């Protein structure tokens, strides 16, 4: 087994024991990147030299007898909408093709403080708008399980890199499912934390009230380790919640005895593939066998989730993305005479179609005369949906649903049908709307061999319960399947 194939937890122990060095691990991951990325296209920017330097620093510290945190020396891939000081951060947009932040996001500061190694920046849908990573200005990322298919999105690069072994773990961001949906499609674990659990400082905003940074891992424990490293209050983010944080990874234990798991029937209805329903219900049965109690229940407003989501998210995006005007940084058109023309041409040339679509939609719903009919009603729906979640959590400890209605589709298959694309998020957006935590984890394959994911949703700040349930399931099925073989053409099925 190559080093890149191991879990972060195992690698951390191996380094701690002196069995391997961080340098060797970093070399192994870069060999994997060099072997797979020409086909997977997960990375937008690589920094091998810097990464090896970081790894050497870890080895030096370890040799000097210092006790290091669990992520020390672990290569962590970073979604390209998280600002990294001195390292290009593009949001996969032409608009920021040359943007090098002079500051680190808080999560990056925390990773550096843990001596994590950053191999590079990962592809995504432009400004995190999309569900297939196809709206990236630079490249299309392939699903490591089938290179002709999309990895999901918007954190497609992060999911694909972790699935392919070109990163041990990775950070993504989730506004409407952007961590969980690609995690599901790539057969890895992805956690969307409670809104306010992880600092958003340095995350280039898409929809400020919905965005959260979260981890990807090939095991639940790895996702927990990365979550532990980045979560916690931050004085730089007013929406981060002041609370005491205890690390989850060391407390994971395989037990679901007495756990009440709700199954909201709205998540198993129209549009959800049979194989997906079956896989999720099989997983439910496994958990029941292990002592959990299954409770069928209802979340009646679920059907309004997508509408509310696309109004709120687009409204905030239209404002958040207004700063990209060609005045200060990033792309500026060469064709203009007046200030107006500079704005128009810069934004016309710098943004892709999907981003423009959402800016137009968001500008419209906030416009005078339409605000009450759209934005205000969407915010009311948000309250309604949140109340429904709060009330079902009086009957159960967490919810089990499919993560996505269907498995990975072909590259290019849906890029021209935005509504079809938006429907990928039907099971994930309600979680963001209510600010809840949710984790997606693999629960089988469809008849094409493509990964199916299930989603566990919990009350606010129930990450420990969610990850523990996910961990229990992982142990019950004897661990998740190994990563896809991806050596040259052989990798493609």
């Amino acid at each position, binding site marked *: 087994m190559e080093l890149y194939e191991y879990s972060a937890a195992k690698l951390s122990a191996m380094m701690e024991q002196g069995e391997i060095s961080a340098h060797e691990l970093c070399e192994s991951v870069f060999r994997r990147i060099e072997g797979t990325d020409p086909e997977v296209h997960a990375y937008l920017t690589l920094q091998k030299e810097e990464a090896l330097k970081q790894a050497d620093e870890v080895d030096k510290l370890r040799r000097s007898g210092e006790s290091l945190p669990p992520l020390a020396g672990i290569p962590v891939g970073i979604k390209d*909408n*998280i*600002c990294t000081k001195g390292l290009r*951060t593009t*949001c996969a947009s032409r608009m*920021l093709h040359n*943007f090098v*932040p*002079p*500051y680190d*996001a808080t999560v990056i500061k925390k990773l550096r403080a843990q001596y994590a190694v950053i191999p590079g920046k990962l592809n995504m849908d432009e400004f995190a708008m999309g569900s297939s990573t196809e709206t990236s200005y630079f490249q299309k990322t392939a699903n490591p399980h089938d290179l002709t298919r999309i990895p999901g999105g918007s954190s497609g690069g992060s999911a694909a890199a972790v699935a392919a072994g070109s990163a041990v773990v990775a950070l993504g961001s989730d506004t409407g499912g952007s961590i969980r949906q690609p995690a599901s499609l790539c057969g890895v674990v992805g956690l969307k934390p409670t809104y306010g659990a992880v600092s*958003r*400082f*340095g*995350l*280039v*905003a898409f*929809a*400020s*009230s919905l965005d959260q940074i979260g981890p990807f891992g090939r095991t639940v424990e790895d996702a927990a380790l990365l979550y532990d490293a980045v979560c916690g209050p931050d*004085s*730089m*983010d*007013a*929406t981060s919640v002041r609370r005491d944080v205890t690390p989850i990874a060391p407390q994971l234990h395989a037990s679901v005895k007495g756990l009440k798991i709700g199954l909201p029937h709205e998540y198993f209805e129209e549009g959800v593939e049979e194989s997906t329903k079956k896989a999720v219900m099989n997983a439910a049965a496994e958990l029941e066998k292990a002592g959990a109690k299954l409770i069928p229940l209802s979340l009646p407003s679920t059907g309004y989730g997508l509408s509310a989501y696309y109004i709120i998210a687009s*409204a*905030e995006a*239209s*404002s958040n993305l*207004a*700063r*990209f*005007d060609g*005045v*200060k*940084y990033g792309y500026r058109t060469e064709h203009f005479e007046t*200030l107006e023309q500079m*704005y128009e041409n810069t934004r016309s040339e710098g943004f892709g179609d999907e981003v423009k679509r959402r800016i137009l939609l968001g*500008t419209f719903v*906030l*416009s*005078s005369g339409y*605000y009450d009919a759209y*934005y205000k009603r969407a915010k009311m729906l948000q309250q309604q949906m949140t109340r429904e979640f709060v009330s079902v959590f009086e009957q159960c400890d967490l919810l089990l649903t499919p993560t996505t209605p269907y498995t990975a589709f072909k590259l290019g298959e849906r890029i021209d049908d935005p509504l079809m694309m938006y429907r990928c998020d039907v099971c994930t957006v309600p979680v963001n709307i209510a600010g809840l935590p949710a984790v997606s984890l693999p629960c089988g394959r469809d008849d094409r061999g493509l990964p199916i994911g299930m989603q566990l949703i919990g009350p606010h700040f129930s990450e420990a319960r969610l990850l523990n349930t996910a961990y229990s399931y992982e142990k019950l099925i004897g661990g998740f399947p190994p990563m896809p073989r991806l050596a040259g053409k052989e990798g493609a099925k």
Partner: protein
Amino acid sequence: MKQGYEMVVGLEIHAELNTDSKIYCSCHNAFGLEVNSQCCPICMGMPGTLPTLNSRVVDSAVKMGHALHCSINRICKQDRKNYFYPDLPKAYQISQFDVPLCEHGYVNIMVDGKQKKIGVTRIHIEEDAGKLLHGDSFGGTLVDFNRCGVPLIEIVSEPDMRSSAEAKAYLDAIKAILQHLDISDCKMQEGSIRCDVNVSVHKEGEPFGTRCEMKNVNTFSGAVRAIEYEANRQIELLEQGESISQETRRWDDSQGKSFLLRSKEDAQDYRYFPEPDLLTIVLSEERVESLKEGIGELPNDRMARLMWEYRLSQGDATLLVEVPEKADLFEAAAAIGKAKADELVKWIVGDISKYLNDTGKPLSDFAITPVQLSDLAEAVTSGKISSTAGKTVLDVILFEDKSVEAVIEEKGLAQISDTGALEEIVLEVLKNNEKSVQDYRGGKTNALGYLVGQCMRLTKGKGNPTLMKELLIKHL
């Protein structure tokens, strides 16, 4: 303004607060420093950065709310006002839209000796934008971000003013309160206080007319000119049978004219919505109450009281209250009960103020005490010393802790009020100035002044002029 018309004026005042740091980041809040030296990724709106609210800004705004008798919204929010302009790096300004921090207040102003209550619609907090620098030396336009994120409060009045004089009095009152609370530097020349002016006109007895807003009014005297210009412009249009269209105009003070900026149809849609990066502002009752402490008597209230209690003119009261130290000195000296109030004011707004202006120093740099001032005023009023001698005394007591009596003694300034002694001098003057005596007797009464002057010369300025005048008339 043309007879038969009435004007209606409402004002929006933007005042920069003097907090140490900016409203949403820890950058220094300072004016006049090197271009782009007081900014960071947050106030420059770089991608991924987030605002965090400086609670001092809220405190200052609540204080102003208390001073203007507002109700304080203990739960309120911040909103985004979206528009593109190169001096606005995020392309939105964080402001407050439908729930301001303070609303429903008023302020008492004084015009022509009469008090009037002007309604204050709201006070909200917001961030300032940067500054565009246009120049030939570098070509084109550059942006200075130092001012980005400087905290502002916007104070919006009701349309309660009916003349430019009332508007001026309102502006002066607000400025005095801001200074009294020490929450703004109120430096016009640095743009730390600016206003937008809303004006409409209507025929007396008819409903209000359509209003026009004027931007870019940077001085209070400019506001007066802008209001008068605008009212006359509107009346002229109405007289010509035209109607007023609601529009925003730019005031050009150097030309004394306003120019159309945009009409109602082109009004910008700012697409306000709640700022998702900031939490709802929730203030405890204790915090709101504690901010009432130390507000003390407001300058406009003090002015009204001085006018009523000491029978001062509005002009004198204004001059005293403008510099609280002067009013303090006045009230302390008046409290001694020796000198008359209007005599004390005369010294303070006259010679003492001249000293302050000439030296540029505050009153606290001078040694003069209420007792000295009271004694000085009394000595002059009672005729113990002449007013010229009084000035000589002032020259000393401004700098030295000596009693007025001691100074009079030391300098030999006591006035000669001995009738016998003065009579001799009067007779001598009459003898030596035959021509003037004849002039006076021939009806040229102003010759008397000359004769008094001659008497004064002979007494080396110490003769009591009133007495000498009486004696001269007696012998003429």
